[in-house]
């Protein structure tokens, strides 16, 4: 055998790590410390208002959550919020993406409109919805009244359920674009000949959707699910501006509670603990999604 002086190219693993190095470097440099720090803080009694009372308390913050009424109620609200918002977003986004994937007059316009809610800064978005849902001068009231659907202006956000549903609606409007874009871009990668083949194989529109589109879209769907879950769990701007978490605790989500704890009560320790609970929950859910969908959607063309 000849001894080879050739330089061997990197193996897949080495190559992969080399390719990931820049991203890992940036992330490690910028967020590793804050993340570690925040976890450390979550093990502290640490209220910025009382720097002298700061001390390490281990998992006490976490332990206290178990009997923290506000936390448990916020967790419940958040869970419900995630379910409602995620469900609506995914269904609507999928339909809209499918519509946008067709050719028709005004498609470019509709696509740009679909991006519109995304371009709106959260604060503006929140205030916009407030002027719409306003009990006294709101556009929704005005519209419904002019359409003859209601007699008097309603205070939509004063009942627990009302506040919850309307907040969810505003949130959906706001998060729809991301899902639409990801799903649409996913759709555009499906070779049309697969639809041809499926059509010839006697699959009607619905079956083509379930048998060709969905399997192909599983991975984009996975991102959408993960990110929208994450977003819904962290939804803050819209809720804060629309209801401030009220009435009572009806829309106090865990994210709202967290922001309030950190920024308003300056309880950094407890706030960080909340944050890590959110992290753990979203991570678990994401891993569950990945477990369910990743393999099924994993294929090579």
């Amino acid at each position: 055998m000849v001894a080879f002086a050739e330089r061997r190219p990197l193996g897949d693993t080495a190559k992969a790590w080399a390719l990931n190095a820049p991203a890992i470097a940036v992330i490690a440099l910028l967020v590793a410390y804050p993340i570690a720090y925040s976890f450390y803080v979550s093990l502290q009694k640490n209220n910025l208002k009382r720097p002298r009372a700061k001390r390490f308390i281990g998992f006490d913050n976490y332990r206290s959550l178990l009997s923290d009424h506000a936390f448990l109620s916020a967790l419940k609200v958040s869970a419900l919020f995630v379910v409602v918002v995620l469900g609506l977003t995914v269904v609507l986004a999928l339909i809209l993406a499918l519509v946008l994937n067709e050719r028709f007059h005004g498609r470019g316009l509709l696509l740009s409109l679909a991006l519109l809610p995304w371009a709106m800064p959260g604060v503006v978005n929140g205030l916009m919805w407030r002027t719409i849902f306003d009990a006294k001068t709101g556009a929704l009231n005005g519209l419904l009244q002019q359409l003859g659907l209601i007699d008097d202006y309603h205070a939509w956000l004063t009942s627990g359920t009302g506040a919850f549903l309307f907040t969810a609606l505003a949130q959906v409007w706001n998060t729809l674009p991301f899902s639409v874009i990801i799903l649409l871009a996913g759709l555009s990668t499906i070779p049309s000949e697969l639809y041809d083949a499926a059509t010839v194989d006697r699959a009607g529109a619905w079956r083509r959707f379930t048998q060709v589109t969905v399997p192909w879209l599983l991975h984009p769907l996975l991102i959408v699910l993960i990110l929208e879950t994450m977003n819904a769990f962290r939804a803050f701007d819209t809720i804060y501006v629309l209801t401030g978490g009220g009435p009572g605790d009806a829309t106090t989500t865990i994210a709202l509670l967290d922001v309030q704890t950190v920024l308003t009560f300056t309880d950094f320790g407890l706030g960080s603990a909340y944050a890590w609970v959110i992290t753990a929950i979203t991570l678990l859910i994401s891993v569950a999604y990945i477990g369910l969908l990743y393999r099924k959607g994993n294929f090579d063309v």
Partner: protein
Amino acid sequence: SGKSSSGGGSGDGSVKFEGWDYEAALVQQNLDRFTKTSNIKVDYTPITSAQYVQKVVAEFTGGGGPDALYVYDDSLAAWVDGDYLQPLDGMAGVDEIYDAIYPGNAQAMTYDGKRYGLPYYTDANCLTYNAGILAKAGISKPPASLEELEAQALKIKNAGLLQYPIGLPAQLSDTWWSWVWALVFGSGGNMFDDQQNPIMNTSDTVTKDVFSWLQQAATKSKVIDPASLQLLPVPVDNAMKANRYAYTIGARYASRDYNDPAKSKAAGKIRMALVPSLDGKEHATVSNTRMYGLAKDTEVKDNAFKLLTYLGGYDDQKQPYTAKFWFLQRGLGFAYKKMVDDPTIVAALRKFADPKIYAHLAEIAKPRNVLGVPWYTEFETEMHKVVQGVLSNQTQPSAAVDSLAQTAGTLKKKYS
């Protein structure tokens, strides 16, 4: 400009100054004048008001705080405990200033016996009413008692003038609900004793009675707008300006806009009155104070204090120049007792309020006495939720005060 990132000064004696972003352009204008006269450069950064406290806290925590800054009375205690601020006792002119201002304001700027601020502006709560609507219902005098308020409102309601004559900003938010405190103080009550122990469910029944009245007015006689739960101060203002409420309780300041023909359809008809009380007698009202504070580790203490004096104290002519400036420009309430005698000020005041009542409110106003406890913000937040429960008939007044007392107890323990 203004990128000095280390705490206190940047070497040339300039003062790093921060405030929330209310009328930042005017602030800058005023500061330019200061720089011109004193030769001290001011490096001014306005910060979004909604996040002012958080950002200042972050800066002080990170070591990049300003030399002088705006301080809310709500934050004073925390910022002193957090070692952000230093007392002004013993510095030139401070005593003089404290003597010249209303006692409520002086009290608000004092913590643990030390004085920490010079007044920026102040305000007191009052009953604001629309005399035009009242007149239409045949009412000539504002109510002195809550009972009367309810009766008048009912009259307006029954006359078909308004479905809900009273509007209150009762949506959850991070700012305090001054009207609740105004009602309690207005009837001579308090929620805490001087040792900051809760008394609202024991020795002092005012809170509970006020809650009872609120519940009654909201759910029985239905004169308080149920939409209040969805209203922040601005929408309430808008409704007042649009003649859609006859009464609200809030800061005196708002009347200026209410009576501005350019902005309001109710212009000229809005009046101020003392906060109605349970017994119809005159007691007090609640005030708030915004002040200028001095950072603890500023390296340009002298210059910063000069700036503070310019902004919150007297000028060469022994006049509170900046306070006057603000009142004339934007109608911001002042802490100086004497100012109400100033003819230019009276003239300006007349455009939107009765100067006498305006001044009287300032005199009887007092700050919340629990501002000094570290858990005040949490308590206030919880209070909002409880009051929402009361207004929507989900919590009974006695249960409400019990719950408030319990919250206070829990928080106290948590922070001990």
